[in-house]
C-alpha cells in the first residue's frame, strides 16, 4: 500500500496540486510566477468567447470521435470474440500492433494518407477513373482531406481505437453466449437480441471504452496540431501553447483545470444517470 500511495502522491497528486496552485497566480517576470490567489486566469478563460468556443468544439469533436470509435469497435470486438480460438490472439495482436509504433510516426503516416496527393486521394482517383466517371463529370478533383476537422476526427478515431476495442472485447468475451441463444429460442430476431440482450449485458465494457477514449481525446493536442492545421485546434493545443510558446503557466493551468471540471461533470452525469436507471429497474 505505502509504495503505491507514495508513488501516487509524489508523481500525480503533488504535480496536480502545484498546477492547481499556479492557476491562482500571475506572472511577475519572464521566469517567475507568483501565487497571489487571483481568479483572473479563470475569469479570462470564461469571459473570452474564443476559449469557450474552443472548449465547445473540443467537446463535440471528442464526442463525435468517441461515438465513431464505438460504432467501429463494436463489430470488430464482436468478430474477434466469435472468431475461432486459434485466431483470437492474432486478431487482437493486429488491433494492438499500432501501439508498437510511436504516435508521432503514426500521425505523420496519416498525413501521407490524407494529403492532396496522398494514398486516399490516389485510391479515390483510381476508383473514379475505373468507373469512367471522368467522362461524365470531368477530371478527378482531389478531396481536401487534411488540415480540417475531418482529419482530426479520423486521426483521433484511429489513434484511440484499441482503447475501445479492448474493453469491449473483454466484456463480449465474458458474455455467456447462452443468453443470446435463449433470446433467439424465445422468438427474438437477431437484431432484437442484439439491442435487448447483447448491448445491455456488455454495457460495462461500452462505458469503460467510452470513458477511456473520451477523456484523453478531449485533452489531445498532437493529433489536432499535426492534422488539424490552424483552424482546427482543440483545447489541448491552447493549453500546450500557454505552457510553451506563450509562457503563461497560470493561464494554462486555469484552462487545464477547467477542462478537468468538464470531465468530472461528464463522469458525474454518467453516474447519476446510471444510478437513476438501476433505481427504476429494481
Amino acid at each position, binding site marked *: 500500500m505505502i509504495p503505491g500511495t507514495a508513488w501516487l502522491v509524489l508523481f500525480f497528486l503533488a504535480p496536480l496540486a502545484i498546477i492547481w496552485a499556479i492557476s491562482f497566480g500571475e506572472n511577475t517576470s519572464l521566469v517567475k510566477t507568483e501565487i497571489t490567489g487571483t481568479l483572473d486566469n479563470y475569469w479570462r478563460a470564461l469571459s473570452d468567447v474564443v476559449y469557450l468556443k474552443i472548449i465547445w468544439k473540443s467537446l463535440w469533436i471528442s464526442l463525435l470521435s468517441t461515438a465513431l470509435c464505438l460504432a467501429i469497435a463494436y463489430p470488430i470486438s464482436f468478430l474477434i470474440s466469435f472468431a475461432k480460438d486459434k485466431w483470437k490472439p492474432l486478431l487482437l495482436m493486429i488491433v494492438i500492433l499500432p501501439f508498437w509504433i510511436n504516435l508521432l510516426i503514426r500521425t505523420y503516416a496519416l498525413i501521407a494518407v490524407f494529403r492532396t496527393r496522398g494514398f486516399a486521394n490516389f485510391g479515390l482517383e483510381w476508383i473514379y477513373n475505373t468507373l469512367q466517371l471522368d467522362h461524365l463529370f470531368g477530371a478527378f478533383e482531389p478531396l481536401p482531406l487534411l488540415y480540417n476537422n475531418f482529419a482530426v476526427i479520423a486521426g483521433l478515431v484511429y489513434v484511440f481505437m484499441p482503447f475501445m476495442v479492448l474493453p469491449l472485447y473483454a466484456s463480449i468475451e465474458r458474455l*455467456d453466449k447462452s443468453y443470446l*441463444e435463449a433470446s433467439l*429460442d*424465445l422468438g*427474438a*430476431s437477431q437484431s432484437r437480441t442484439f439491442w435487448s440482450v447483447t448491448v445491455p449485458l456488455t454495457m460495462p465494457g461500452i462505458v469503460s471504452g467510452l470513458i477511456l477514449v473520451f477523456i484523453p481525446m478531449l485533452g489531445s493536442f498532437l493529433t489536432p496540431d499535426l492534422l488539424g492545421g490552424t483552424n482546427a485546434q482543440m483545447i489541448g493545443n491552447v493549453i500546450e501553447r500557454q505552457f510553451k510558446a506563450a509562457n503563461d503557466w497560470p493561464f494554462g493551468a486555469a484552462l487545464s483545470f477547467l477542462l478537468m471540471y468538464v470531465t468530472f461533470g461528464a463522469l458525474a452525469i454518467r453516474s447519476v444517470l446510471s444510478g437513476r436507471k438501476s433505481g427504476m*429497474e429494481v
Partner: protein
Amino acid sequence: MSEPIISIRNVNKEFPGVMAVDNASFDIEANEFFALLGPSGCGKTTLLRMIAGFETPTSGEIIIDGQDISHVPANQRPVNMVFQSYAVFPHMSVIDNVGYGLKVTGVPANEISTRASEALERVKLGNLANRKPDQLSGGQRQRVALARALVKRPKVLLLDEPLSALDAKLREQMQLELAHLQEDVGITFIIVTHDQDEALSMADRIAVMHEGRVDQIAAPDVLYEQPHNRFVADFIGKVNLFEGTVTGARGKTVSIDTAGLGKVQVPHAEAADGSVSLAVRPEKVRISKTAPRSKSVMGTKGRIADWAYYGDVSHMFVETEKGLRIGVIIQNETRKTVDAMDVGDIVHVYWSPEDTLLLNS
C-alpha cells in the same frame, strides 16, 4: 398410435473429425416425457441443440408436428429450451424475463402480464415477480427459466441437464416437480441428462446414447431389466458381467461355458452363439455363509473383499478364486444384518438363472 410430435429421421451431425450424432432415427409421441441419456460426449446435447435450432444436421430430417424444421431458424421453431446455465437475463426482473418471449413476438401488453403472472404462479414464484435474478437462488432461477419457456406454449419443451447445478435434496424434489408439471401442462418434454436416476425416475421413455449412436429406446423398467447390449446394461445401474462362449441351445435355454462360473444354463428367447456376456444386477444376487439349498440357482464361492455401508443398503464385493469380482447389494433390513458377515469371510453368492441376462458382446 397418433402422429408423433417429433420425428428424427436419419439425422447425422459431423463435427471436424467427430461424428457427434450418427444416424439417429426415432419418434417422440405427444405428451411424452422423453429422456436422452448418455455419458458426456455421447451426442445427446448436440441432438437436443439440433431440435432447438442451434446446430444444423449434416444430413437427415427433424420433423416437428408434421413440418420439416431442419432448416427453420431457432427463433421460428415451436420449441423452447431450458438451458443448463438457465440463461435467465440478469438485467431484467423475473416478470420481464418471463414476458420477454411474448414481448418480442408482439403479444399485447395486457396479455403478456396475465400470461407471465400465470406462468410464475405455476412454478410457485408469484411472490418474486419483481426480483432481479441475482436475488434468487439457483433453484428459483431454474423455475424462472421454466416459466419463461412454458409461457410460450411450445409444442415441445427441451431441457438441457436441468438439474445438474442443484444440490442433491433440491434435485430430488425438482425431479418430482418436473414430472408433475409435465402431466399438468400436457407438453412434450425432452430432457438431456447424464444422470441415470434422473432419467429413470422422470421419463416415460429413455434413449440411451453412446458415441453418437442411439443404443436403445425403451421405458425405464425395460431398459433396466432387458438392456440390449453391454453398454446399456453397464451404464444404467450397476451390473456384474461374465464373459463366456455359447456351447449349445435347447428350447429356450442356452448353455454357456464361462471362465468363472463353469458351465451354466440361462433362459434366452433369441438364438445366440459365439462369445457372449452374462449380466446380473447386484441387488438380485444373494449372499450367505451357508450353501444355497435350491439346486436351480447359479453362483460361486468367494471371499468378501470390500464392504461399503450406505445406511439403507450395503454394497459388497466378493472375490472368487478365479479372479472374478462380484458386486452384491443387500438391504440392511434389520440392525443385525451388517453384523452377520465381515470382510474376509468366505461366502456363497448365487442368483436365479431368470435374473441373468445374455448379452451379445
